[in-house]
């Protein structure tokens, strides 16, 4: 760095451009293009009429942009049997998502709380076991669980899929809250006990209000995870509750005749919209969620 550079104001004293820096920015630019390309192509394809798509200008901007494909994807795209659009799947996913996120966080936080602050016998064994089983692929449980739920009279239903999401979210949620509660000063907990507060009182009045940041992380993690789920929804939700991912796959992959690529891409974007909104809206919280839930496969 030259002597003159030292006298520049701090804001402008960022690294100077030299060949290595140019190379660095070129690398970042090209890799960023690779990551953005699919999103860009999705958007432009969804806004083009089929006549334009058939000409084959994949990367070109739409000449006469229209939202017809979006309307069709939402209201009248066919999923094999019915032609009511992907909105059916959207509302199914919302109905699955809301109770699943709430219940899995409730159960997970309670388990994490009991495992961290209360010295229950065997707590470490239970926790260790939960972390190990989180790695087992779903294929090991799916068939027995189908049998158990049909034996219990629940079959494939909204309740079944909510229970399933709670079960498979439990290890990550427990890990998240256990580690958070274990990091709080234990005096807080002791003081509450001396004042005569019971197990559930301390949980509801003291611990959960303090755990707001973890609840945010848990909501982000569970919302994206459950929204993006395909296999569990396919097996456990039942025909009337199929989530958006399953309907999307049916719309795109079970078409007869010529594919309506614009409708396909509009439906795909609609399905990706919620996780994208959560991701771009939450910023660093999303990364925090990944780091905290990194144990889950």
């Amino acid at each position, binding site marked *: 760095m030259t002597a003159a550079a030292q006298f520049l104001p701090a804001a402008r004293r960022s690294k100077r451009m030299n060949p290595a820096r140019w190379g*660095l920015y070129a690398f970042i630019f090209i*890799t960023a293009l690779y990551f953005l390309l699919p999103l860009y192509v999705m958007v432009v394809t969804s806004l083009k009429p089929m006549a334009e798509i058939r000409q*084959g200008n994949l990367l070109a901007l739409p000449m006469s942009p229209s939202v017809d494909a979006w309307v069709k994807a939402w209201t009248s795209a066919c999923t094999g049997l019915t032609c009511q659009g992907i909105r059916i799947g959207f509302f199914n996913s919302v109905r699955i998502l809301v109770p699943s996120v709430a219940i899995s966080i409730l159960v997970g936080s309670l388990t994490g709380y009991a495992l961290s602050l*209360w010295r229950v016998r065997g707590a470490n064994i239970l926790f260790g076991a939960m972390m190990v089983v989180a790695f087992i692929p779903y294929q090991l*449980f799916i*068939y027995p669980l189908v049998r158990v739920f049909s034996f219990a009279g629940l079959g494939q239903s909204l309740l079944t899929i909510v229970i399933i999401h709670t079960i498979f979210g439990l290890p990550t949620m427990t890990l998240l809250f256990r580690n958070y509660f274990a990091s709080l000063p234990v005096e807080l907990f002791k003081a509450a006990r001396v004042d005569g507060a019971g197990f559930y009182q301390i*949980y509801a009045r003291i611990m959960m209000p303090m755990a707001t940041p973890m609840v945010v992380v848990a909501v982000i993690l569970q919302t994206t995870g459950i929204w993006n789920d395909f296999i569990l929804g396919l097996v456990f939700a039942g025909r009337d509750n199929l989530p958006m991912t399953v309907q999307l796959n049916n719309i795109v992959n079970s078409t007869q005749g010529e594919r309506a690529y614009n409708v396909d891409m509009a439906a795909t974007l609609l399905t990706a919209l919620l996780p994208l909104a959560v991701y771009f809206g939450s910023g660093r919280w999303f990364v925090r969620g990944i780091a905290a839930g990194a144990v889950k496969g």
Partner: protein
Amino acid sequence: MRLSLNSRLSAFSALLPALLVMLVVYVGATSWTVWMSLTNSRMLPNNNFVGLRQYEMLLGNDRWITSVHNIVIYGVLLVSLALVVGFLLAVAIDQRVRAEDTIRSIYLYPYSMSFIVTGLVWQWLLNPTLGIQHVLRSWGFEGATFDWIVRPETAIYCLVIAGVWQASGLVMAIMLAGLRGVDEEIWKAARVDGLPKWRVYVSIIVPMMGASFATAAVLLSTGVVRLYDLSVSMTNGGPGIASEVPAKFVMDHLFERANIGLATAAATTMLITVIAVVAPYLYWRARKGGMR
């Protein structure tokens, strides 16, 4: 502090769901699946013990062999490519670049999307008639061929392309956290010694980041064994059976081909693979102190 009977009952009641899930779902269902793999169950489960017959059948099953072959190719390529790409992205971002937050968001956003969405987008991009191949030709590269997705011998590599696109951001996030944890003193010492930057990365930083690499590799590997949605949405296992994977083999034999014995034998084989990957990692982490 001793717990009163009342608190102990409360704590136990709070742990009841977790205990039930562990016993019924994880231990119970897994054991039942393993037991089924030793029977000749077809459409309905039965208890006729046939030893390892289903595993013999599995080894003679073309589709299973293809699935295993594919998952090995996918696994090796995905893990190594995602680790390399993710690490390079993290190093690039760590050079105090401008608009760091924006760049990081661009690298990571694919990870927020489902495998179904990922598979469908790449299916469209790799479509030989109107996709990237067509674009290359229209740019004047007349002989350009990029029709991997319709060729049986290359279809699996298309899944790798999509998988790397989706997962590299995750590796980048893990690596960046590791790089930010490197002691500033090391950089100062290296500068005093006049070491070029790349040498510092290769000889000092990479060996120091063993934990980050291990975490990322295990996360990616467990994702590899589970791979299902991507194969379903992108190629549906095709052309023919060219891009079938083990998880799909299990699902299809459970729900479409009504062959529970064979499906559970395949699932058990997946379990053994996961144990082989994860057990050394968990042992290593437990020895390093605590599950964190």
